[in-house]
């Protein structure tokens, strides 16, 4: 038992357990399957946000191109599902049966070589993770080796996002163009549109997300995580200590890209389509916002950020479509100006110390013999003891 307790403390699993309780028990019991499927969709963005915590919060480099990696993962999955959906029998009215419908519309008569790996599920699943990582390595290796960072990195990743959208939309015959891949119904003959399949996919998504958070947490608590923090705060110093700083950054960037790819694949599975509108600049920046709202230093916070912003987006755009953008704008500006560490920072820096002092005050009051009026607890809680600062990551800020 002590070992479990110790490791819960060490990896800060308490908040994660709370999150798992919420995602795996509370939400499935309280929401109908349509809403739960929406939550599942939001959770796919949480993969990206968790990756951004590693890259941005810990690595100190902001990427505005996470949508690309999300998109590659999503397209890899969608291409597999699309090939399965376009078997020769269902597509027999086409001029060349057996290829996806949009290829037929674009007068492509043979499956392009690019599509061939996506005939097999294991290969597609591997590509969901490896293809984004490969691109991430290509983009980041050259840049971090040359010590490009910060603003320049952000702009170049943004340009990559633009290139990818233009490419996807331009190569309609190979990618489905603006419409993307639609009508993804089955996976190895298993209908993903039934309610039970949706429940299963939701739980798979939650499970993968928890695994990703554990993986990132493990990286954070390892020596690498310490080095990342040191590097973010004083990069030169780490470099002069003999470490090759760029390799760490490349590693975290590739890790985040792989996670985003998983998120994209889960998106394609749960939502049933994939389109360039999840790849470009605007979704990429929104993903950064999920991370920023939740807290750029907190893995669990990033998940809450993705959930809250997306849920807010859905609810508000349903009822006040005109006000939604104003709210989003206020959220961006407010979070950046007032809570640079997001909700997690608010919790770590404000609520938790306040709660600790409050509890301490209550405890002290309980220990002392009741002096006068027992019924009136002092409204002003004078903190007798300095609130113990949490061991959390919230303190380790730039």
């Amino acid at each position, binding site marked *: 038992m002590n070992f479990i307790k110790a490791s819960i403390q060490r990896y800060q699993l308490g908040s994660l357990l709370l999150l798992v309780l919420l995602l795996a028990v509370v939400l499935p019991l309280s929401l109908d399957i349509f809403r739960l499927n929406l939550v599942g969709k939001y959770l796919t963005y949480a993969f990206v946000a968790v990756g951004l915590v590693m890259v941005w919060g810990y690595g100190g480099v902001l990427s505005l191109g996470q949508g690309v990696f999300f998109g590659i993962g999503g397209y890899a999955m969608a291409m597999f599902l699309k090939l399965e959906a376009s078997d020769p029998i269902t597509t027999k009215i086409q001029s060349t049966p057996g290829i996806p419908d949009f290829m037929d519309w674009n007068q492509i008569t043979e499956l392009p070589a690019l599509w061939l790996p996506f005939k097999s599920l294991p290969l597609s699943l591997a590509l969901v993770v490896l293809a984004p990582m490969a691109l991430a390595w290509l983009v980041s290796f050259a*840049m971090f080796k040359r010590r490009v960072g*910060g*603003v*320049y990195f952000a702009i170049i990743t943004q340009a990559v996002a633009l290139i990818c959208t233009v490419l996807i939309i331009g190569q309609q015959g190979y990618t489905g163009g603006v419409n993307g891949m639609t009508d993804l119904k089955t996976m190895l003959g298993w209908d993903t549109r039934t309610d039970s399949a949706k429940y299963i996919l939701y739980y798979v998504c939650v499970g993968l997300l928890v695994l990703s958070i554990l993986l990132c947490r493990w990286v954070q608590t390892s020596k690498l995580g310490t080095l990342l923090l040191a590097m973010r705060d004083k990069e030169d110093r780490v470099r002069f200590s003999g470490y090759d700083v760029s390799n760490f950054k490349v590693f975290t960037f590739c890790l985040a890209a792989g996670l985003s790819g998983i998120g994209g694949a889960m998106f394609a599975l749960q939502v049933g389509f994939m389109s360039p509108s999840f790849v470009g600049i605007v979704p990429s920046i929104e993903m950064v916002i999920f991370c920023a709202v939740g807290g750029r230093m907190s893995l669990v916070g990033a998940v809450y950020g993705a959930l809250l912003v997306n849920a807010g987006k859905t609810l508000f755009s349903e009822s006040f479509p*005109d006000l939604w*953008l104003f709210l989003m704008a206020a959220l961006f500006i407010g979070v*950046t*100006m007032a809570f640079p560490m997001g909700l997690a920072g608010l919790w770590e820096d404000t609520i938790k110390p306040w709660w600790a002092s409050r509890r301490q005050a209550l405890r002290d009051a309980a220990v002392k013999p009741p002096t006068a009026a027992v019924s009136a607890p002092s409204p002003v809680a004078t903190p007798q003891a300095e609130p113990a600062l949490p061991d959390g990551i919230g303190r380790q800020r730039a």
Partner: protein
Amino acid sequence: MTLSDMMNIGLMQGFAGLSLFAVLLLMGLGLAIIFGQMGVINMAHGEFMTIGAYSIFLAAQVTERLAPSFMPYYFPIAIGLAFVFAFIAGWLVEWALIRHLYKRPLDTLLATWGVSLGLQQIFRTFIGPKEVSPTLPEWLMGSWTPHEGLDIPINGLFVLALTALATGGVLIALHKSRWGLRVRATVANRTMANATGIDTQKTDRLTFAIGCGIAGVAGAAFTTIGSTGPTSGSLYIVDAFLVVTFGGAASLLGTVVSAFGIAQTQSISEFFMTGSMAKVLTLSLIVLILMMRPQGLFALKVRR
């Protein structure tokens, strides 16, 4: 096809490249001051351009209603108005947000993205979700035909002239005026500039507002080429950032050269392939070159 026909096509193609150059340069010019000089990542830059474009549209509407006879002359005044409106908006944004964020450049990105979303909704609410284009004065329409078979559009010439004027103005202002001196001092070393008696706060605000004003002028110029909608700004923003970054953020001359290079690559490759593939090629080339020369073409050589 005769030789003179080929000549004409070549000249018109060259002019298309030149007007794209002018457009890119106008987009990048304001950003070269805000991002290049001040280091603020202004994601709302596109929306400041849209403010300029809408100023022209509103001025055209007002003139058409109240003084139709004034139509041929309103355009230059409207450009001035575009500058003023964008300048005021920039001043307010700097006062409300940016001045708190100079030490956190990446956070200016998030905050200004919020500003851009807000502005987009303001445009949508008050002007309408549809794309609009102003009624342009007669003299801007049509084309100039120096000889048979060669048509140079006048609006292209106008944008080119305006770009030359704006670029020249900014270059002179930055290198010959008191303001330029203060800006360069503040950029080089804020603390030291403050110590020498420069009011860096005032300089920052003025610089940011001037950059936004120039964005407004750029937007005004674009109304002669295309229509404007609430989301027009987001179409320009990446191009603008790439132009500035590619040229080397701190160098205005670099911005000019990079706008020229990007425009020519784009328009020449458009001759051989589809527009979207030409764009992909151009952007990929820029990204590749930026990976090799991360500081851009013209890196400012200063010790930091």
